């Protein structure tokens, strides 16, 4: 056990060192850009794993929390003139606040209804962003967002050198926080609720409160990532809420495997490079999302032991309301 732990610690430290050295070796701006975007997606995917994988909440509004972070930070920095560093934190907090709002109904719902409410929520946020074009820029997007500075150093300089380290720091901090969370008593309690809700509740775990906290924590990191995303790219477009973004990040979580935090991080790094690489191939700018969709289905079909077996179990046995007695899969179990 302790040997395995040491090997993993060594691997993490080694990867961290590699991560720190990359910008010194890689001079190409575009490759650095891909790393930065990959780190951002990794934060979103890993934090999604907290609510979807560990807590077993069918949260399909996670990308909306990311988008809320994007717009909250962008608007705070651009219109209110708040320092962009602070604005990023505001993005995280805004996403957390939105998560609390969604949690109000979600903690009381089961199964498919959780999926529907979180989905409807993300579409609603998109519609609000598009309709309030006077503030958000509508479908044109929010442009000319201020950049970050530190001790007079503007991060626009040196071919994204500074941005790379901010993104890496964001990723490392997020992963450290998430790993700490899932290994704490809190993490144990949310997994207990996922695996056996009735038993967990009977042992005194406050289910509503734990789910509220899970959603707020997981949304905070997504919002923070969104904040950095908009400060880095300096534009925000409603595209961040689109089903394409949802499927891309969901495929990262699935390919990496749920309930691991590290899995989605590595999948995000890999898939960002593959997806961006394909985007440059003629005719695949949109078509690559078809490939992402196929990849998702293939993973779900052929890697059930590795990935889907780690998916939440207990809550799936009892879809909301009338669903439970109608599920076709109960055929095999009862017959």
């Amino acid at each position, binding site marked *: 056990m302790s040997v395995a732990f040491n090997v993993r610690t060594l691997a993490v430290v080694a990867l961290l060192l590699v991560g720190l050295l990359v910008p010194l070796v890689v001079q190409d701006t575009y490759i650095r850009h891909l790393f930065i975007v990959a780190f951002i997606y990794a934060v979103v995917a890993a934090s999604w794993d907290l609510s979807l994988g560990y807590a077993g909440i069918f949260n399909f509004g996670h990308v909306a929390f990311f988008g809320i972070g994007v717009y909250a930070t962008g608007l705070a920095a651009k219109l209110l003139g708040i320092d962009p560093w602070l604005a990023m934190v505001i993005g995280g907090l805004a996403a957390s606040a939105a998560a609390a709002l969604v949690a109000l109904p979600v903690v009381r719902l089961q199964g498919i209804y959780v999926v529907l409410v979180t989905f409807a929520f993300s579409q609603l946020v998109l519609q609000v962003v598009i309709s309030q074009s006077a503030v958000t820029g509508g479908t044109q997007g929010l442009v000319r967002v201020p950049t970050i500075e530190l001790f007079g150093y503007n991060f626009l300089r040196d071919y994204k050198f500074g941005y790379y380290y901010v993104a890496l720091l964001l990723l490392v901090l997020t992963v450290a926080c998430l790993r700490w969370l899932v290994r704490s008593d809190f993490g144990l309690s949310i997994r207990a609720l996922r695996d056996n809700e009735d038993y967990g509740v009977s042992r005194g775990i406050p289910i509503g409160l734990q789910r509220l906290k899970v959603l707020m924590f997981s949304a905070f990191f997504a919002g923070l990532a969104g904040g950095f995303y908009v400060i880095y790219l300096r534009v925000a477009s409603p595209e961040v809420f689109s089903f394409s973004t949802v499927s891309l990040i969901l495929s990262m979580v699935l390919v990496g495997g749920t309930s691991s935090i590290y899995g989605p991080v590595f999948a995000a790094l890999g898939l960002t490079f593959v997806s961006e690489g394909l985007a440059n191939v003629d005719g695949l700018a949109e078509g690559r999302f078809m490939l992402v*969709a196929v990849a998702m289905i293939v993973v779900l079909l052929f890697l059930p032991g590795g990935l889907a077996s780690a998916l939440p179990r207990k809550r799936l046995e009892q879809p909301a309301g009338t669903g439970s007695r109608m599920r076709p899969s109960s*055929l095999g179990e009862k017959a």
Partner: protein
Amino acid sequence: MTADTISTILVSGIVLGSVYALMASGLSLVWTTLGIFNFAHGALMTLGAYMAWTISDAAGLDLWLAAGIAIAVAAVIGVGILMERLLIRPFYDRRDILLITVMTTLAAMIFLEKGMQLAWGARLKQLRPIVPGNVNLLGTTISAQEALIVVLAPVLLGLLWFFLRNSRIGRGIRAVGQNPAAAKLIGIDVSGLFIVTFALSAGLAALTGILLGSVRLVTPTFGAEPLVKALIIVIFGGLGSLGGTIAAAYLIGLLEAALIFFIGIYWAPSMIFVLLIAILLIRPQGLLGKVER
């Protein structure tokens, strides 16, 4: 509030409600029978509209509209059956089928949407109306096509109800929905009926798309907005019963029309969502859903 206002809200509400009822009943049918939620339902609707356009429009094959409708519905039913085979059937024995099929149908939706964008491009298309001209309904003028939707929706849903109630296959579908294990025990071909159900639902989606395709402009994301509305409707009405879903569809249609009239088109969706959350706080099983605890 004048009589004119009431008439406008009522008529546009019923038009919206009819579209939503056609859309949501297909979703509800698949849910009650198979226990899965098909996120690609909106994309099937779009596919139906594009197919019918390609076959009947002057820029396409320029055949009769009737041919376009028939072939489009048949093709979408084929795609629906293929989806059931590839994306749902392999997971029947999995305990987490609900979550897995949410993801596979979501993937199918992306696949279809992007595929249609590649095949038909981003340019707006519009189907020829089945019936041209305008109609005056309760003092409000709407296009004849919209009037056709208002008339056809109850007819189609009535036929569906009659089919589920009286035909041998329909009774089988309801039996499978109520208890698949018992249905199998008495010799009902459960997996065959899953296919029939999916085909019916896909056919309804295609028809909705074709009917709406001459009222609204067809784009690759044409079905996304009705799908989101259908989501809200099935949350309101509860997914369990076709009747509840249809009632909720008309209710939401009228509510949306009223909200658009009084607070404008931008804030109406947000208001509906806030209302939804408020209702779910009081009744977590949906407004019309039954308590099953």
